């Protein structure tokens, strides 16, 4: 039950993009087409879960033991950057098909603040390893949901006559605002 709460909270109530404003860059950057949005979501799901497990282990087994908590930011960003590189190399060798689908999104993920954000959040919330994994899967599903809905809306936005000054990014942000308004309806559903 507890894990279900964490998942629901991560997907709907505290949606990473629309409620916590993490990962806005890919949210605006790769949301022109539903297919690319789905590819990006897959890559985020993969990397976010892996990164959370590894950084959680490093924090609890190394940094906390030696009282080096202040090195958290530096260690995490290095681990995430090298992890992304490694995933890219391994994926290329092991599963060329998956690499074809996710490859171009992987370099972009290093600067996706949602990955680093979730890795720090699970420590702040004092989750154990299993809770952290559930939380990161839920969060990336929330990211996927927001990104794919938004991409679908943007595909239609291209066909509409928008006032000249609002064309492009302003119109997209306005749509994101309305989407966030809809997600506001989930507020208070569950609390973790």
């Amino acid at each position: 039950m507890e894990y279900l709460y964490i998942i629901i909270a991560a997907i709907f109530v505290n949606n990473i993009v629309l409620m916590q404003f993490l990962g806005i860059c890919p949210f605006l950057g790769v949301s022109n087409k539903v297919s690319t949005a789905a590819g990006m979501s897959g890559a985020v799901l993969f990397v976010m879960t892996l990164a959370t497990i590894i950084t959680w282990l490093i924090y609890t087994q190394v940094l906390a033991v030696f009282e080096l908590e202040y090195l958290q930011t530096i260690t995490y960003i290095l681990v995430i950057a090298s992890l992304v590189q490694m995933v890219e190399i391994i994926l290329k060798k092991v599963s060329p098909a998956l690499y074809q689908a996710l490859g171009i999104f992987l370099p972009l993920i290093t600067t996706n603040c949602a990955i680093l954000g979730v890795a720090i959040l699970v420590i702040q919330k004092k989750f154990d390893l299993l809770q952290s994994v559930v939380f990161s899967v839920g969060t990336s599903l929330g990211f996927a949901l927001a990104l794919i809905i938004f991409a679908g809306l943007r595909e239609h936005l291209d066909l509409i006559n928008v006032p000249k000054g609002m064309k492009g990014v302003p119109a997209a942000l306005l749509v994101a605002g309305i989407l966030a308004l809809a997600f506001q309806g989930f507020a208070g559903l569950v609390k973790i």
Partner: protein
Amino acid sequence: MSNVKTFTNGFIKENPVFILLLGLCPTLGVTTSAINGLGMGLATTFVLFMANMVVSMVKKGIPDKVRIPAYIVIIASFVTIVDLAMAAYAFDLHRSLGLFIPLIVVNCVVLGRAEAFASKNNVVSSMVDGLGMGLGFTFALTLLGAVRELLGSNAIFNIKLVEADGMIVFVLAPGAFIALAYLIALMNKLSKK
């Protein structure tokens, strides 16, 4: 390019938020009030300034292939300094900015300037560029924070202007998107002239 031009460049013509659309996560996330926007902007300015300076100093010693990880380590060190300093001297601000302080590391503005400017220019103009970009970022965040605070809680810099309930939606998440959308549209209009 002269240093004055480099400095003003970041303010209006290449404003990181309104024109380049970089670093939108903290822009949207912390600007519930003008003070928060200002604090976040100044923290980022410090990191930008120091990182630009150090990167331009050591650029010759870094092999080209590992330059991005090297830049990230430099940036992360200064972010840690800001994080610890704010926790010690500005605890309330530190708490309301929360997660977004360590996340300055992945702010594309900082890495973007290190890669696009500091790695190609001398120390002085890199410092000027860092300061200009940082203050442009601060300006954008403070403006957005002020607009949201004004509409959301009828106040500016915590000074209440009208004794009435504001439009609470502007303090909540949706208001951030909507306010930024109109500010960017306004900036587009102004910069076209």
